[in-house]
């Protein structure tokens, strides 16, 4: 299907883009439309990768210009390297030609992370799919192009899985997961991607291949690995990752509870956590979402409930027993209207299919959707949800909610039709208000999808000038020219030359 076309970025990004390009060393102004410049770049890339792995046809370039989010950018050329050495050569060539570089996995990101903000060479890592499993250490070295679910499938028979399980796990890559520090329903107990990464191999802006971290605990020196995780392609291109494998639970129980109000569902979720139980997952859906999902996959959700809670407890059989009882007890205290425990693996899989199809189900309602991602402290969930519904009503948008209630990670979703003039602006305005409300509640701008382009200009809502400058300094230390994924995450002007003492030039230390 021909991809949907959007105008790039948030409203008002135009001026800030121009402003920032002034401080980049990349001569963006020199048009790529000059045939000479483009052809020599393509020639150099073909020399490295051969003709088949350099895609320069207009349709190919168009297809790689966007991700799962709203933004679309301009792709100069797409390359498909297969080794870290090839990535290194590509980076050096692009740098020589003063071309920015955007790394890309499966393109399922929702923040515009893989959509170039300025014309860029797109490095698609999907051909790098090696997996080396080390059961003795409960780890695996994986290429960035490995699909998340494939790793868990491969290790299942040995009794292990890769714990981060984004809803997109059948499509997204581990490289993308690492770059976004992705989460998933089961990250409540197990932690997000960063807790499962022991080492990353990156290609730096100089084209050097560097291994950060390692198989032993507490690698010496600054923990650069930890900051490459979640860096959204701005610090380096990930060419290999050493991930932890997690033992499969001995037993698991999945409980579906229906409630007459959203407040009751949230109170149950928070009540379970407050009692000192950390379930494997605690997911809530509102009625609009349950109905969309039921209609789509027929997961067996109660469509008369105002909200449903999907709770999963997993681990040692004795613990599962006790925790399942506690879940039921807390649900009862909060006026549960229906409660069902998945009888077998088939039923359990069906419930999870329902949860993980939520975003797909929205396609029945409108051609487009905007999926938000914010976090609030768990104690603020009820009050925040109320405000979010009010915002949707005030703006007259169709909003559905499904969220990781256990860790306060909200995903308000607005279904709309982008072809209707002015719709996208209304959606953006509503979503910006949602972000403000969450930050006022002590929350954050993103829990798992990242900042990318979508939320870049909202960063000052959360961070001071000095905070943003520190982030920009960090970026600069890895990539002084802003070669990788320029104009993402940090708003224009984040780097303040006049803060603090001057940085000594030349030799130091």
């Amino acid at each position, binding site marked *: 299907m021909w991809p949907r076309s959007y105008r790039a970025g948030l409203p008002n990004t135009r001026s800030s883009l121009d402003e920032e390009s002034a401080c980049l060393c990349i001569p963006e102004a020199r048009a790529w439309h000059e045939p000479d410049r483009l052809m020599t770049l393509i020639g150099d890339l073909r020399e490295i990768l051969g003709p088949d792995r350099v895609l320069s046809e207009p349709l190919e370039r168009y297809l790689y210009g966007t991700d799962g989010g709203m933004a679309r950018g301009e792709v100069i050329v797409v390359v498909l390297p297969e080794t870290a050495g090839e990535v290194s050569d590509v980076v050096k060539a692009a740098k020589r030609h003063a071309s920015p570089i955007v790394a890309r996995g499966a393109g399922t990101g929702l923040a515009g992370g893989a959509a170039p903000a300025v014309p860029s060479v797109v490095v698609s890592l999907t051909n790098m799919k090696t997996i080396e499993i080390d059961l003795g250490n409960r780890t695996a070295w994986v290429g960035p192009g490995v699909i998340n679910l494939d790793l868990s499938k491969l290790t299942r028979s040995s009794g292990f899985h890769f714990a981060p399980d984004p809803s997109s796990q059948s499509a997204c890559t581990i490289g993308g997961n690492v770059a976004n520090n992705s989460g998933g329903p089961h990250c409540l107990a197990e932690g997000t991607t960063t807790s499962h990464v022991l080492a990353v191999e990156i290609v730096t802006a100089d084209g050097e291949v560097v291994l950060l971290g390692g198989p032993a605990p507490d690698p010496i020196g600054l923990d650069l690995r930890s900051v490459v995780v979640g860096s959204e392609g701005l610090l380096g291109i990930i060419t290999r990752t050493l991930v932890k494998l997690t033992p499969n639970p001995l037993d698991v129980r999945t409980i579906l509870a229906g409630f007459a109000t959203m407040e009751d569902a949230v109170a149950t979720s928070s009540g379970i956590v407050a009692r000192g139980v950390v379930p494997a997952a605690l997911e809530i859906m509102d009625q609009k979402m349950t109905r969309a999902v039921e209609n789509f996959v027929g997961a067996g959700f109660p469509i008369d409930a105002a909200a449903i809670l999907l709770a999963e407890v997993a681990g040692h059989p004795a*613990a599962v027993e006790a925790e399942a009882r506690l879940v039921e007890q807390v649900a009862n205290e909060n006026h549960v209207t229906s409660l069902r425990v998945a009888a077998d693996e088939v039923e359990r899989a069906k419930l999870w299919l329902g949860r993980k199809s939520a975003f797909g189900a929205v396609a029945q309602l409108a051609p487009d959707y905007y999926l938000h991602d914010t976090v609030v402290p768990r104690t603020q969930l009820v009050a925040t949800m109320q405000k979010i519904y009010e915002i949707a009503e005030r703006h007259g948008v169709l909003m559905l909610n499904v969220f990781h209630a256990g860790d306060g990670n909200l995903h308000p979703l607005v279904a709309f039709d982008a072809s209707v003039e002015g719709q996208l602006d209304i959606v953006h305005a509503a979503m910006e208000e949602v972000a403000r409300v969450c930050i006022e509640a002590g929350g954050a701008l993103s829990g798992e999808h990242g900042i990318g382009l979508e939320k870049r200009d909202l960063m000052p809502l959360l961070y001071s000038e000095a905070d943003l400058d520190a982030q920009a300094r960090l970026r600069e230390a890895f990539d002084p020219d802003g070669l990788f994924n320029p104009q993402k995450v940090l708003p224009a002007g984040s780097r303040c030359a006049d803060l603090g*003492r001057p940085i000594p030039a030349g030799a130091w230390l």
Partner: protein
Amino acid sequence: MTIAAAFAPFVGLAVADSGLPECDLMAAPQTIDELEQILDLASEHQLKAVIWGGGTHQGIGGRIDPDLVIATSQLNRLIDWQPEDFTVTVEAGMRVSDLEEMLADRGQMAVLPELPGAATIGGVMAAGISGWRRARYGPTRDRVLEVDLVTGDGRRVRAGGRVVKNVTGFDLPRLAVGSYGSLGVIAQACLKLWPEPSTKVTVSVADGDRALATAYRPTAVVEADGVAKVYLGGTEAEVDGQVESLDGTVVPGWFWTPAPTGAVGWSLRVPPALIRSAIERLPSGWRYQAGLGVGEIKAASVDADGAAELRAWAESRGGALVIVSGPVGLYSDMDPWGTPPPGLDIQRELIRRFDPCRVVNPGRLPGGI
């Protein structure tokens, strides 16, 4: 104004702290504001500063002859505790033991090192030290949600947030763990908490490896000089079920054994599967405590004989042998860290942007940076 006069307002109760190194200038900021002023002054005068938390891990890394000692003992306030949210925000000078004691009242734990002594939250974070329970709960870096750093040139910088899941910006909080202050002094942090299990036991077993293979995700398995202890936590039924399969001597509660002491203290880090091999390679006379399933060994010895060979082996397997404490002379005979890691250029570039006059703990990190 003389340097001493400039610092006079900040010289306070620190001097009363025991164990502080001798130094002409001592400062004990009472507020983070004061810490900013101190570091700004230190940068202006190009001073070398040592940051003193509890003093329990000062032996790690390159030696420093400081012009200034900054004690964090007065920065020890509780800023915000949200028990229902399982987060706590504290100033860096708070002692780990005080924090854990406070949290235990509400059945919560920060899962920091088990026998912290005088160690502070900031010190444990800066040194990147984890407890044995990392086997189940992950290392200290997984606990840090938000951090307030005061950079070497005195700018207060905040990153992360007081929520349990967050990808808003680069993960400076995790980068600060193990940074030894090189990006700035850790002034305040928000930590993720865990519920204390309702039942906790310690099981002494003859065969630690077998116990590790038998137990389902134990809290920790620690072997000390040939004797292994399995730490379990969870519901009563779960713990009872696990204990049965282990075949050992059970005592209720978690009982931690102090790390071995000696003239030289070591931290040996290897991939977890190599821990038995590492134990077997310890030079004779070395006493040890090993985290099975984790790959960390705390060891003590009378001298450094055999250490070079052990280090070479560990490094060849992707690990390290780090000096934790020892006589001053040892640090000139043997690099305290071993071979510096890759990415040293990036580390340098980072530090010069956060501590341009290289004030805080200069030379302490691997590679002498």
